[in-house]
């Protein structure tokens, strides 16, 4: 206990040294909090022992842009307490050695189905934390997922505190194929905007004039109001250029940030969408033909995500199928979230933006970015340990940690344990270190028939980013 207390302050100090991880102000806040916690801990005595967990030695990709090579991530009771190089790990902490491996924030899938059991609602009272789909999703790196407009944590063997947030997205039907629906929404927003303007005015004036009547809220659409107040995000399902432009104009007119699902032709109007502060939920492999009778640009483009991102649109990636297909290797389901993001990279999206598209951006869209989506002090300790770049199709998740507990260990579960088994000390003492810096494996890509996507990210797409990949680590395929 004492050690833990001492550590709390030390950890915070150590953290303050890392400008890229936490601003000094944050660290100070942390210290204050720690002091309070210490007092509380004294009161409680040994009633509840702190649970420490540390991932050491890995290259930590925080998701915020920083890469801390050979750093330590320390978690206390499931929340990141510190991360960096000079982190003192308490003696009682459970540790996970990630030397030679990469540590990323746990992936976030904005849509999913079946990961939490058969139920489609009331997740707190029905989640099945033992089901195979959840385990498979953890094995593919997903630690948070949205289902039925609820943000849920993939907590294996635990039914407590699974629901992170509910109803943060409101789906609106706003397309050119439904003109009356469009008109209705414009009217609703109009009314809500007028009401909010009146309300603000009333708030201003009532200080001087107490008799002033509060504006009447009746007839104001609650969804439109919540969107304008920023309490929920408006979600649209639009892919055609015309629909996208309409959404962008609506959002700009009423001053909210739209979430656009599909967004296939977004690349043709990316600047408009960027100006509207849009979020795009894209499936880079989506295909859509250009309407040939039109002169303008159209159809799908592999560069969609990259162009959108360049224009300031926050891009979130999701595969076309959001369930888990247990019937075989489908290759397009939720288990291939990073591969889908890899396709965005193929179209020119930066690695960092691609990582964000499956971590922090979906976390923002689910309204849980204060808890998950990146590795930062104070966020949940949800992370994945991989043997290579998360966006590379040959990388395998070795460990998935959810709230400071190992939820998945590749060698302990039967799914992928046989593929490139983790070397033990006796078998291959140095196989993970100081090798393969310049190793490319073009022939490896050819030799694996299971890796179907022919246009997958070739190793040359990101050469310097995989120091630990070696030719002998080729998938054995079965």
């Amino acid at each position, binding site marked *: 206990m004492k050690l833990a207390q001492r550590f709390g302050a030390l950890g915070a100090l150590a953290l303050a040294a890392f400008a890229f991880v936490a601003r000094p102000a944050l660290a100070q806040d942390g210290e204050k909090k720690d002091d309070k916690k210490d007092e509380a801990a004294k009161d409680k005595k040994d009633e509840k022992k702190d649970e420490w967990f540390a991932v050491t030695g890995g290259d930590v990709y925080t998701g915020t842009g920083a890469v801390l090579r050979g750093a330590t991530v320390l978690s206390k009771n499931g929340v990141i307490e510190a991360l960096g190089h000079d982190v003192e790990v308490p003696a009682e902490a459970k540790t996970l050695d990630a030397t030679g491996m990469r540590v990323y924030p746990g992936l976030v899938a904005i849509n999913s189905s079946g990961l939490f059991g058969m139920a489609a609602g009331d997740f707190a009272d*029905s989640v*099945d934390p033992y089901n195979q789909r959840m385990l498979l999703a953890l094995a593919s790196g997903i630690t948070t997922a949205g289902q039925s407009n609820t943000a849920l944590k993939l907590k294996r063997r635990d039914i407590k505190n699974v629901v992170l947030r509910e109803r943060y997205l409101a789906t609106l039907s706003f397309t050119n194929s439904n003109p009356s629906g469009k008109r209705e929404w414009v009217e609703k927003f109009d009314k809500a905007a007028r009401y909010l303007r009146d309300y603000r005015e009333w708030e201003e004036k009532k200080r001087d004039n107490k008799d002033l009547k509060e504006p009447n809220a009746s007839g104001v659409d609650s969804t439109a109001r919540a969107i304008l107040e920023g309490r929920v995000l408006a979600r649209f399902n639009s892919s055609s250029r015309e629909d996208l432009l309409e959404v962008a104009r609506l959002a700009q007119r009423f001053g909210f940030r739209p979430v656009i699902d599909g967004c296939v032709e977004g690349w043709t109007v990316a600047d408009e969408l960027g100006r509207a502060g849009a979020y795009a939920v894209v499936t880079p492999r989506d295909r859509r033909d250009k309407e040939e009778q039109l002169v303008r640009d159209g159809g799908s483009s592999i560069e969609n995500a990259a162009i959108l991102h360049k224009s300031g649109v926050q891009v979130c990636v999701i595969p076309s199928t959001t369930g888990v297909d247990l019937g075989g290797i489908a290759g397009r389901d939720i288990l291939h979230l990073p591969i889908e993001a890899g396709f965005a990279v193929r179209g020119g999206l930066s690695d960092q933006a691609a990582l964000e598209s499956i971590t922090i951006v979906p976390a923002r869209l689910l309204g849980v970015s204060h808890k998950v989506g990146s590795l930062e002090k104070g966020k949940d300790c949800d992370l994945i340990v991989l043997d290579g770049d998360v966006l590379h199709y040959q990388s395998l998740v070795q460990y998935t940690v959810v709230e400071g507990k190992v939820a998945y260990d590749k060698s302990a579960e039967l799914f992928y344990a046989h593929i490139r088994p983790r070397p033990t000390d006796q078998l291959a003492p140095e196989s993970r270190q100081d090798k393969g810096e310049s190793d490319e494996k073009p022939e490896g890509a050819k030799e694996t028939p299971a890796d179907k996507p022919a246009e997958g990210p070739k190793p040359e797409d990101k050469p310097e980013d995989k120091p630990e990949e070696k030719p002998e680590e080729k998938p054995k395929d079965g």
Partner: protein
Amino acid sequence: MTILTTILALAPALGGVSEPSGGLLAIKVGRAETVSGAAIEHAVILVDNGQIVEVGADLPVARGIPVFERPDWVVMPGLVSCYTRLGVDSRAGQEFSPEASPTPEIFPRHPDYKEVLEAGVTTIGIYPPGTGFPGHAAALRPHGATLAEMLVDEDAYLKVYFRANAQAKKQVRDAWAKVDEHDEKVKKAKEKFDKDSKGKSSEKKDEEKKEGEAKPEEKKDDKSKAFVPPEADAKIKPFLQVRDGELGMLVSLSQAADWAHWADAIGERKLDYALRVVMTREIDMFEVKEEIGKRGLRVVMEPQLSLVQGTMRQRNLATELAAAGAKIAFKPRNDTAGDHAAWLRHVGEIVGAGFSRDLALKAVTLEPAAVLKLDKKLGSIEKGKTANFVFLSGDPFEPSTQVMAVMLDGEFVSGEVKE
């Protein structure tokens, strides 16, 4: 030696008197699987008036007592099938009816009862069908022309069908909240009673009996009378009985998540209950075996192996649960008379796959009897217990073994034993 002396003392005394009534009988068999203790070779079991009077190896039998001697046979306690819908249909409802009993449905002359009795099943527990709280189960003998003849115990266990969903959890929480409410009511009534009896109020209060009133109900005829707690609602009574240990409770679950949510729904409450685990091909119940084992719960399940999901790897859930500390009670694989007949063979398969033989014997007799809260009365070959026996041609779990005769309450009800 004490056994010897008792039997010698007892035998002539009883023998002379009871012979005309034909009560006393000595059974001599090659081997007796007593279940409660070790197996007895050359066993002699003395039965009187439907009860086991004495059990031992090679006990001398006093002259005059009829002896039923089968040196090649093996005897074991009558099988107990504690969870069945034999002879009744499977129509089920969804209403909250914990007070309901399945006995009105039972048709005593249903051929299934005769069939399972001939297969060695001497006690059955008929449960009420339905989800949530469909009622309580009744323990019966599968023998008799009327319900009264069949009935052993009308209140065996409260059946709970629980699945991981918000509705089921709410129902459980609500039920126990009502129990607390009732307790509160009783407490208040008691306080009032104490105060009144001290204060010696002059007028006699009328007997009030209105259910569902916020005001505490009282039942008082006389000041001198002892405190009578307010009557509980019929729908709450079974829960009070469960809490007080008068009624068992059997909770049906089908997967590990059901267990997790059940444990969450009952919270810290200390309850005495057994689990019914519905075996399926790819059941994941082993995920929570430690939790179940830690509580030492009794688990009613089919003698069946399961597979690890998505694979052909076998798992022996019964063995794993038993190793974790749970008590296993088997039920026939399917709820048919045919599977009751094949029951021992199926259990034998589980024994072949690693389940302890001793536990397997218990799992078809004493453990299911305990689920029915009848383990003090039957389920093993012990002095003082009901004389329910299955006579077998050999080892109970040998596939070639046949049921030779069945004794129910000291009477042969099946088999060629007339001499």
